[in-house]
């Protein structure tokens, strides 16, 4: 009963997520992303791979395929996207016992699949399968977003045709001087403060939303506000990912050729 009640009510984050000078706990302004660093082609074994850091959240992604699908899963219409999300046992503050296969990981896998299927041109590869493996090395809030962003880079690295970059970002609500100020790219501390967290995966260049998830109830007055902030974040991330891909291609061709030859 008690938990039900909490779920049922609107949750307001503590008032001190923003300082009186308008800075967040870690020194960012409300509309700023955490620092993103990323690298494509970190492994040689898979067809495509990427490493991405979003603040202290660190994620590895590996893509295998497209290859022939197993009989049971095979579809004549489109490629089957198979995702596996797992968190390293050392990724959180307290040690995890089960890196994958628990409810949360399964749900994450499903969500990843939904977002990535939306980006991949699935119709090109009937009767085949693409496997995407995600390993979270350190979780500091927004692990899902980092996973989506890393998976996009890995897919690009694997040469899988995409409709557009799929980028994910979170946003939350805070108040500054009585007026609502949505926070972009929520870190673990801000998440734990108990506010609503809106997760959006979108294809910024087409403007479509691939996935939308919200942790608590939020009054409809503020929803637009928070959503537009999250979408803005997705667009910002796209720019960063695009730059990383271009840099990788510019410097990487020669190196990679050497390796393959």
């Amino acid at each position: 009963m008690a938990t039900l009640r909490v779920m049922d009510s609107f949750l307001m984050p503590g008032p001190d997520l923003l300082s009186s000078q308008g800075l967040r706990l870690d020194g960012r302004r409300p509309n700023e992303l955490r620092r993103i660093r990323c690298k494509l082609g970190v492994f040689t074994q898979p067809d495509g791979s990427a490493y991405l850091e979003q603040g202290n959240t660190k994620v590895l992604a590996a893509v295998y395929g497209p290859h022939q699908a197993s009989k049971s899963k095979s579809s004549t219409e489109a490629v089957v996207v198979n995702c596996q999300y797992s968190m390293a046992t050392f990724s959180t503050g307290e040690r995890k016992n089960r890196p994958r296969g628990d409810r949360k990981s399964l749900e994450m896998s499903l969500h990843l699949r939904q977002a990535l299927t939306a980006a991949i041109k699935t119709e090109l590869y009937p009767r085949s399968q693409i496997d995407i493996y995600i390993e979270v090395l350190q979780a500091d809030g927004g692990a899902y977003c980092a996973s989506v962003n890393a998976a996009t880079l890995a897919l690009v690295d694997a040469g899988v045709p995409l409709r557009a970059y799929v980028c994910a970002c979170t946003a939350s609500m805070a108040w500054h001087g009585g007026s609502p100020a949505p926070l972009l790219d929520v870190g673990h501390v801000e998440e734990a403060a108990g506010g609503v967290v809106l997760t959006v995966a979108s294809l910024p260049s087409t403007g479509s939303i691939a996935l939308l998830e919200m942790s608590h109830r939020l009054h409809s007055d503020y929803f637009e506000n928070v959503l537009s902030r999250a979408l803005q974040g997705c667009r910002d991330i796209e720019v960063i990912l695009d730059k990383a891909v271009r840099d990788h291609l510019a410097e990487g061709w020669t190196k990679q050729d050497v390796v393959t030859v």
Partner: protein
Amino acid sequence: MWTTKTFLTKTKRGNVLKIVREHYLRDDLLCGSEACNVCPQKDDDIVLEAKPASICGLFDYSHYLVLDTNVVLHQIDVLEEDALKNVIILQTVLEEVKHQNTAMYQRLLEIIGNKKRKFYSFVNEHHKDTYVERKPGEKQNDRNDRAIRKAAEWYASHLSINNVAGQFPQIVLLTDDENNRKIAQEEGIVCCSVKDYIENVNGFVGLADKLSKNVMPESYSKDALYPAHLTPSQIHTGIRNGKLHQGTFHASRDNFMEGTASVSGYEKPVLLQGHIGINRAIDGDIVAIEILPKEEWSKPSDIVLEDKADDPGDFLEDPTLLKSNVVDTADDDITPTGKVVGIIKRKWRQYCGVLLPSQFPGATRHLFTPAEKRIPRVRIETRQSNLLVSQRILVALDSWPRNSRYPLGHFVRSLGLIGDKNAENEVILLEHDVPHARFSEAVLACLPPDDWTIPEEEIKKRVDLRSICVCSVDPPGCTDIDDALHARELPAQTRDGLKKYDVGVHIADVTHFVRPNTALDKEAASRSTTVYLVDKRIDMVPDLLSSNLCSLRGGEERLAFSCVWEIDENANVLSTKFHKSVIKSRAAMTYEQAQITIDEKSRNDDIASSLRILNALAKKMKQKRLDNGALLLASPEIRFQVDSETHDPIEVQAKKIMDTNSMVEEFMLLANVSVAQHLAAEFPQCALLRRHPPPPPANFHTFLKAARQQGFEIDVSTNKSFSKSLDAAVIPGRPFFNTLLRIMATRCMQQAVYFSSGTKTQDEFYHYGLACPIYTHFTSPIRRYADVIVHRLLAACVGADVTHATLLDTKAADALCENLNYRHRQAQYAGRASVALNTHILFKNREEIEQAVVLAVKRNALQVLIPKYGLEGPLYLPSDKFVYNEEENVQICGGTVLKTFDELTVRLTLDSTNMQHRKLVYQLVTPYIPGVSYVKENEDSNEPAMDVEVVDISETTNKRKDTDSKSTKKKKSKK
């Protein structure tokens, strides 16, 4: 403008967890100074002046001040003065202050928010040049000190860039930490202690008085009077292993050497006695308590004791006079007793009171007596004692060292002359934490124009009830009319052939003007209620709304929120409707006018007939309510007749109660209940309701004992039986006895409180006093904020308005309720204090002999009530004449036995010898006891206006002892 600069991590070790947090350093933070040539700041970013004039004799050049955390924590009163300007508050300081003391933090934010003060808060922790990383092994405090020094250093060099030497302000670091000062000097930072700085300030008289005298309270001192407090870590382990307990300390009003603390795990509050037992705890502090072994437990002393000494110096009184002579461990009055061993949190605020000047002329140390009796006297230092003696002043507490009998404090400001009406009212408002500042510009900007009329489109949205005969009934002189009524017979009849009526209650539509989240709304929420003092009203919403646009005045079109029922002849509600409406009240009547209209048979107009319907229905409704077990309680209420010129009270009279009073009351109750039912169904999580918990049986203990002495058994098991037995407890010939019983019963009750429906289970919603399962407040939105919220919720239900986020948030609603309850209580206390103040003024130059009733018997006094004035106070009895019988709870002197409910006559005079606590003195007149009772010196003077009882007294004074015994006999025979 997305910038991430050098990225650093901050580690924080908990028990086993290693937490790594991001910490971004920025290059876009501004220094806020006009003298700066580097920062790309716009005009509105600039806070600090280019060339501030120096006010301190020690520094003859212009400078900015950088403050240390301790300076803010201890010297906030100095900072609040307008003297210091151009001050830099570092984020390090801000965060430390917030961590240590939220109230202090709020005050600091207020200063920073005041543009005139020129306080700039600089985010040094996120600035790329001022961030300091904690070195391995370095203490957090040392790191913060280093961060402050680093920022000061940075400011100095930052301002010097592109500036001619001597043309830009210097930086002065204010800190009381000697160590810090030493290191700063080595690093080339100009620094100074607050005391040196403030004492050399020119042009601000009295600033030095506000310096806090902060002494490390636990430091070793030779002649310590009090045992040392435990350290926080000792307290922590003590509480964890169950040796110590945490509780809030409540000092006793009657006895300065006694207090209690409610501790979980003990049914009764834990008793704390004597200076050592209390050990420097002050009312409201959260303290750590050690429970004494059982054989040392004692009982609350029933002695009334005041701190009378005129600065006796630093010694403590012997606490033995508290102990009652017989300690019988089997007695059920024995309470767990303990002693304070440490202070977990001080809850000090500023206290009003007067200065008790030192006997030595020219002395600077004086005692201050607070108005609140539960607060001990405070020692302050001031050079303006001659000026302050005649004034009400505000004082803040600083510390209470072990070797001082009294806590140390400092003067904050003067409130005005003692006895001045405004100053006295100010004291009442401050002491009860009533927000009473004038409405700010931002609030007034939310108001509609003065000549606002209802726009056409608003009328179209509402139900038009202007054609219906609506009228309002209120006390005389009421300008904030928030309710009006109507009733008419419907042509149709019920199936049983009963008459049907259409009855409506119309409440001022305050929420049309007070929109959510505006400055006006926030101010109203913070005030929560209108506070009524005898000669002053502190409005919740500005006057334009409270006595004009929202007041349902006669003959004017007003917006209203209506609750309309169909009611049959037997007062059964058949249907209920809620809607927003427009009404035009036909008449705004007083209770008396309405009563006359009803009684006057010849009047048959619409108003008269609707009033008669209402009155008839109300009587039936009341009967039903009483049958259900609603309690009729009483409290001595009085009204002052106030002089129109001086606003001084001239005379008092008891409030008159008429049929029409209860008529209006019944319909307001019905409206409130109807609304509550509707809201609870629509908003199970966040409806704002009001509940009245049933009193715990222990509350009735003394009440039942007293009633039994008079020969009545009161059944308090349920409210129904309670109500019934109260009705039966009547002594013929003593009409006041029943009222008195009800007054005492009221004292046993708990307070009714607001709550959010999401925080309690359904059966806890019960309202004990009204005997109804659900209740709320809907009918007075002008003067209660709870009603405003209820209006909003109801408007959302009926589709007249939209919801907003905070309205539906259980947590926010809970926080709101807490504030509502607090303010509501404080407003009541303030009202009572105002009545007391005015009675004192009334008695300034007169004495009266009045009838009194004994409410309670204490060891050295009787608590008596004067029904005529509703006054209550102690009548001291000399212990050499009277013997106190604990068992029977009576005072005996020779043949006279005084007990609860006894009627006496007493003489009332005002004792003005102590200007601080001017108090009424009660002296016994009858029954006559030689050497105790008051005897009029001039027996011939007879006062014609006196009633029979008093004539009786003059007889007794003539005949002395023999009649006295007769009169007591008479009383006994009455039983």
